[in-house]
Each structure stands twice: as C-alpha cells, then as structure tokens.
C-alpha cells in the first residue's frame, strides 16, 4: 500500500472521481496521448525505481519474498540469464543495445545471485520494461 501510494495508485483511493489519471492526458512535447504519464513525474519515477530496488535487493514486506532462483541458476551463463530476463520481462524483445549494456555490466560481477539481481534491477528500472510495447 505504501509503495502504491508513493506511485500515486493506491488501490481504491484515486485522487479524483475520474480515477488515477485522465484518458486525454497528452505527453508534453509530443502529439501522443499517454494517460499513465500524468502520474509519472520527477518523484514518482524515482520512487518506482526504488520500489524495484526493494523488490530485488531488499524486501517489500515481511510476508512477500521474491523468488529469483531461476535467474540465479541461469546466471553463470550471462546470455542465458539475459534470454530468461528478456523472455519474462520484455516479451523476448530486449534490444541489442540494451543486451550489450546489461551483458558487460553483469559479466563483471562474480557472484551469481548478484548477477541475477543486477539483471532484474536494470531491466525492471528501464523504460523499455516500464512501457509495454
């Protein structure tokens, strides 16, 4: 609840009777409508990434645990790890550039658990994951 409130989407508590964001919100600087962007701002974007951080590196509550064992098992082979992350988080659509950046960052880490966490954090915090496309 605390996280949802931080990100301006606390269940059943929209800020107005028109729900969490208006359907006709136009993204500044574009001709595109992007309702959800109404609540994506300088603070919520950081808090969202910090939520990913807590989910991956810390804990979000005493009763919620994140099972990343499949990713840790795949971690010795960075390509395999990134395939799994791409499949589960990006519909198998991770771009070459993103893959290259993640690969070099993760390869420099020795510990498999930390490799998996780094891959999940960087993908979860990315705009490519955030915007479904």
């Amino acid at each position, binding site marked *: 609840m605390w996280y949802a409130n931080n990100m301006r989407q606390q269940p059943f508590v929209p800020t107005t009777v028109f729900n969490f964001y208006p359907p006709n919100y136009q993204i500044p600087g574009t001709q595109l409508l992007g309702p959800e962007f109404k*609540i994506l*701002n300088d603070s919520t974007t950081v808090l969202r*990434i910090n939520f990913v951080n807590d989910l991956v590196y810390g804990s979000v509550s005493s009763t919620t645990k994140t099972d990343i064992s499949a990713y840790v098992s795949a971690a010795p082979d960075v390509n395999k790890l990134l395939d799994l992350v791409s499949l589960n988080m990006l519909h198998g659509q991770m771009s070459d550039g993103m893959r290259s950046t993640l690969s070099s960052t993760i390869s420099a880490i020795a510990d498999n658990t930390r490799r998996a966490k780094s891959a999940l954090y*960087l993908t979860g915090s990315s705009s490519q994951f955030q*915007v479904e496309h």
Partner: protein
Amino acid sequence: MPRMSRRGFLKTTCCTAAAGVAAASFGRLGLVNALAQTSQDYRALVCIFLFGGNDANNLIVPLSSSDYANYANIRGGLAIPQGQLLPVQPKSLSVTYGFHPKFVEIQSMFNQNQVALLANVGTLVQPTTRDQYLQGLATVPQNLYSHADQQQQMQTATLNTFAEVGWGGKLADKMQSIYGGNFPVLISLAGSNVFAEGLVVRAIESSGDPTTPLSGFYGSSEDNARMAALQSLLTFDTGLSLIQSASTTTSNAIQAARHSRPLWRKAPNCARRSQIRISGTCSNCPRDTNWERPCAIWCLAPKRPRVSCRPELRSM
C-alpha cells in the same frame, strides 16, 4: 566583486546548460539553488491553486449592515458572526469588509498593501449577463459546471477547447531562452499538472520530494557500474516515443536529485501555519560555518514570504 546579475550568473556558470547539454555537475534543482544564491535579483512567483477548495464566501465578508444581513441570511448556520470578522477598508471601495477570524496576519498584510484580493474570478468567453446566459445568447466556456473542465480551463486560459498547455508552461516557454538549456523555469510540487506544461519546457514535476535519490547505491564498483548502466539505458533511442518520454522524465528526475539540496520539507518549526519551505539564499543571515545548506525559508502562508534565520532551522 560586484554581485552577479541573473544573466551574468547564467552566462558564466550554466554554459553547459545553455548549450542544451545536461548540466550533469549541477542537477536541475542545483541550478535553481545556485541561481538563488548568486544573483541579487532572484525572484520566484509562487502559485497555489486550491481547485475550488476555498470557501471564498467566508474568507471575505461585507461588513455594512445591509450587506452583512444579506450574507447572514444566505449562509445561515455557516455565517461568521459579524463581531468576529477582522475589518479591512479596501482603498478602491467605500464599504468595509471583514476577513475570516483566522486571517489575522492576512489582515495585517492587507493593511500594509501586501495582499490583494481578486473577487468573482471565473472563466468567461465573453461578457455575459444572466439573461443572455439563460436565453442561450452568449458563448460560454466548454462544459460549464463540470468542475474538472473548469479547473482545467483556469490553468490553461483556454475556454472553448481542451488545451494541453497551461499558462505557466506558456510563460516558461517564452522565458526559457533567458536561462537556456535544461534550467527548470517551473517547479511543481503538485505532480504533473497542465498549468506547468508547455510546448518546449519540461518543468520539474514532483508529487513528493524531488530530491529523493535512487536507493541501493553505496559507491562500490559494482554499484557504480550498475548506475552507469541504468543511465546508459535511459539514453537509448528506441524510436518509440512513449519509451523516450519515460526515459526523459527519469533522466531529468535523477538529474534533479543529484547534488541538490532539499527543495522543501514540512515545517514543524515554522511558527506560521505553513506547510512548505523552499530553500534558496539567505542574503541577510550572518555568515555561519554551521550552515551547510540554504537557510532561506519562505513561509508561504499566511505570512508574507520572507527569509527566516531562526537558530533551530540552521541544522536543516
């Protein structure tokens, strides 16, 4: 050395920003703090929009016998007793009015010519009489009586169609060239709102503390590499506008938080009934090595914005 003018400061300090490049060593809020501390003519316009939440009929009440009787009759149980109202004499009028009993300081400021009231402000496309309205002879604002639409129109000053840019954003678009680059002409502490949106300028839009940093980075080489990767991912041109926009917002946010001092915080020590403090410069404070952070505190209401240097604020 003479104090710098705003232009001088920006010309010499923010050349990277003026070149359109992110002023990475400053952060966007850092630019504001730096400007506030070095320029003599720093001013900020603070706008508070209550979305119609002010009970204006009890904020200022006519005091003459007949007008007060009329008010008391209409308001019934909500009327404030005449003797409790704080009388003021507007210079432009011959009749007296009274402020709500809680507005002692507003009354004082009014008497010092530091407060002005604009009454009966609303949206109209053209001068309209009641008869014209009832007979449908006048063009009226789109979706009149829809509070969401009227709130939108107050922020956009566009009444006959749905507008995506606000008058704050339009002002910022015009002013941006003075500052250059990524300087945040507008800072919203009320999240994204149409008032702050322009065609060119991205405001800092925060629904909390815009200086909140990314957590989980403690300076290890692994952390540093992960931060570099995170920021690198934000620069990718994916060709997808929605992703680009999310990346821009996130990049700006990270930049805003970096090297910035707290922009605002709740004001438990503030003697006034204020909830907001904005850091800036403190030109009339004595130099004190204990001050590591800007100590200018503006109590937005009800006291006139002013610099406060009370000792308990020095630890901020």
